[in-house]
């Protein structure tokens, strides 16, 4: 089924895009991540211009996270205060990301920047998750997990203006989540990802947040940050392709529901191990692509009509 994408200016196989959305949806349901980290690179492999891919993927993540937020909130899994601070940082981050995006676009290095960010972020997170999942899996029955030495990172305790976040069970400076939100917002704008795969471990291990509100709060943040990035892209790059978004959404919202149901039937450690393997393999593919001669040595950039 051929579908013409009016912003990307080309015709694609609609069913394939729906299937791609479905795949990322299943992942987001299974792992509680947006799945944008998979959508953007796959869309680029398919031939969608990178800017359109990143912009449209972030819009799709909005849809995928809505039902997650609703579900998490119904069981009190969202810390709105913490979420608000993260979002405030995220908005600034999205603005910063937009400036960086424009800058790298004008010097022609946006593709390389996106690729390197993917390799570094996915590589680090994948390795961390994989190690942790393996440790949990191979721990003998009855053996207790090793005690955590500290609740949060020493840098977090060093920040001034402490505040009590009740739901998260934290007494820390709001500057820490603000900066974290800023970093994730910037990455969202640049990479077209929700940032869940960065935010979840960061909230757990850097801030030391209670595990039962981590996923919900992360999704809550992603929801608003991707809304902001969509608007930002619409105003600056004008690269959000509504038709592409609709196709991805059909797949991903359905996939997300299937994924959520599947998630209850598999051991969480195995899930995390699979996610780690997936994240690492994408990082390797991207690293490999950076190192080999690209199919197209030349790329065309339209200049503004003077």
């Amino acid at each position: 089924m051929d579908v013409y994408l009016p912003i990307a200016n080309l015709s694609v196989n609609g069913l394939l895009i729906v299937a791609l959305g479905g795949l990322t949806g299943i992942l987001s349901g299974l792992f509680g991540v947006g799945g944008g980290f998979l959508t953007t690179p796959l869309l680029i492999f398919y031939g969608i211009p990178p800017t359109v891919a990143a912009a449209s993927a972030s819009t799709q993540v909005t849809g995928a996270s809505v039902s997650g937020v609703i579900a998490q909130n119904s069981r009190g899994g969202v810390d709105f205060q913490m979420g608000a601070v993260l979002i405030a940082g995220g908005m600034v981050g999205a603005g910063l990301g937009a400036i960086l995006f424009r800058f790298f676009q004008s010097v022609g290095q946006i593709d390389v920047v996106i690729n390197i960010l993917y390799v570094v972020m996915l590589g680090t997170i994948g390795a961390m998750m994989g190690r942790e999942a393996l440790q949990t899996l191979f721990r003998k029955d009855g053996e207790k997990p090793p005690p955590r030495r500290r609740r949060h990172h020493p840098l977090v305790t060093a920040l001034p203006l402490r505040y009590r976040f009740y739901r998260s069970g934290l007494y820390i400076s709001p500057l820490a989540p603000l900066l974290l939100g800023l970093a994730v917002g910037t990455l969202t704008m640049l990479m077209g990802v929700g940032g869940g795969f960065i935010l979840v471990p960061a909230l757990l291990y850097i801030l030391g947040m209670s595990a039962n509100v981590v996923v919900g709060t992360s999704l809550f943040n992603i929801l608003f940050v991707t809304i902001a990035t969509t608007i930002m892209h619409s105003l600056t790059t004008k690269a959000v392709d509504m038709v592409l978004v609709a196709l991805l959404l059909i797949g991903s919202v359905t996939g997300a529901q299937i994924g959520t149901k599947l998630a209850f039937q598999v051991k969480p450690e195995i899930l995390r191990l699979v996610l780690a393997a997936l994240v690492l393999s994408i990082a390797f593919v991207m690293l490999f692509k950076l190192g080999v001669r690209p199919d197209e040595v030349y790329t065309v950039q339209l200049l503004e009509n003077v």
Partner: protein
Amino acid sequence: MRYLLLIFAALMLSGQRDPILVPEISQHEVRVRQGFTGTELLLFGAILDPRGQRAGREYDIIVVLRGPSEPIRLREKERVGGIWMNTESSDFRSAPAFFAVASSRPIEEIVDTKTAAIYEFGTDYIQLSPSGVIDTDEQLRFSRGLVDLRTREGLYKQDMDGVTITEQVLYQSRISLPSNVVTGTYTAETFAVTRGRVIASAVTQVEVRKVGFERAVEVSAENYGLLYGLVAVFLSIFTGWLAGRLFAMV
């Protein structure tokens, strides 16, 4: 009426001996809408002798279809410290978004390279107007790179056997536009050549434009960025919410 004028004008200009070209195109408007996967244009016409008989001589026909020209920057990737990244770039003030040449015989058998370069008979001869100071060798490398890239994208092409001439009077040629064509005004130029000399030429135009929903999407994305963004956000939220609701019922 237009043709009569054309014929009249051609008569006045070309003296008695040279023939007149009467070109026509299968559609003067290409509508890009949902399901557009490209289209094929039929460029056809007649070669007339001013005395009203058929031309009678051996002619070759060359058809050049070109899309709107755009100023572009072409970037070249090179290996820097183990990774491939953009390094040098070159600007072209008028790179056609689409360029196709079709001829009744291979161009080199019809005209010499000088004539071919003047009339842009072939993808090697596209006048790209490079700008900025850049030496000739480099310019050539960039021009070749651009032509090669767009040839593989199906945007630049030449077909040495693409025009068929019937009875020395009628000619026809098919040129396909891929789905990734740029919208705008395309010009189709037809040239009649004999003994290495262009003896008649004529121009027609094709308008390629988005219509309906596709046009609305493009226009609103360009002009009403904020509203467009809000609609996109609403669409995502609504779909996400709806799916949650539907699946909760199952």
